[in-house]
């Protein structure tokens, strides 16, 4: 009886976080591109992924992530970009889940840096596969460089949220 109640509560929290991630994602879609580079985004929705990973389990974080990617692709101007999102998102999540135990709550930002870099590596790998050319690799260094910065920023934001809300939300 009690565990069922907990599940409903948890489900509501996961749903709420998914909605939040989706809103952030859609807002970011409407913002102008920071550079004319395929795949270069601030990745603000990553704030939710990092928060979820350090609060719930990797499986539950994956639920939020994939729900956001699938729902988000409906709002994106280019629905075929979902393949890049899934590839990048999966590598980012798997990497951060494996590294999570090495980071304290005060170094969440560093975990997020790895996540952001892996996200871009995953996206680029999908692009190489889909485009059948290695030309896209030329963008990888610049994408990783800016992913380190944006990953640190989104990670710091997530860290701030987690430290301020000691309870699980």
């Amino acid at each position, binding site marked *: 009886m009690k565990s069922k109640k907990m599940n409903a509560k948890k489900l509501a929290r996961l749903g709420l976080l998914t909605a939040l991630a989706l809103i952030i994602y859609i807002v970011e879609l409407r913002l102008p591109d920071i550079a004319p580079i395929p795949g270069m985004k601030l990745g603000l929705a990553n704030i939710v992924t990092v928060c979820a990973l350090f609060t719930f389990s990797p499986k539950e974080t994956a639920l939020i992530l994939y729900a956001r990617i699938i729902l988000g692709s409906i709002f994106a101007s*280019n629905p075929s970009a979902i393949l890049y999102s899934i590839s990048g998102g999966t590598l980012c999540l798997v990497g951060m889940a494996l590294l999570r135990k090495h980071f304290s709550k005060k170094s969440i930002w560093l975990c997020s840096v*790895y996540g952001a870099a892996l996200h871009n590596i995953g996206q680029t790998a999908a692009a190489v596969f889909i485009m059948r*050319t*290695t*030309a896209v690799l030329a963008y990888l260094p*610049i994408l990783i460089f800016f992913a380190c910065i944006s990953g640190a920023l989104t990670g710091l934001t997530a860290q701030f949220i987690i430290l301020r809300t000691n309870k699980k939300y």
Partner: protein
Amino acid sequence: MKTKRILFILAAAVFLISGIISVYLLFLRPKPEKVRITSDGETLYVLEPAREEDRLITVEYEGRENVIEIKDGRVHMLKADCPDHICIETGWLDNGLPIICLPNRLVIEYEDGRTDAAAG
């Protein structure tokens, strides 16, 4: 504790190295003479913009069109049927970064042998 330090140093190294490579690709890399245009993995043109007449090249992919312009020995994407127009915003091809239209699977890049071997 020790792993955390290693992970910090590794991230810092990745940040610095990717920055240095980016600067090289953007500003320092010598420009090869030939340019390769690839659609959906297949090479359509290998040309030398410096020796080309000013002209437009239209490439179609699944009914969507990209118009490439060669002008004064330089190349850029003039028009594109893609949703994001990133390829147009990239501007002229004048550094180590290729012009890429992901939705229409079109690539305009400098030809430097590396791509030759990889295209296989």
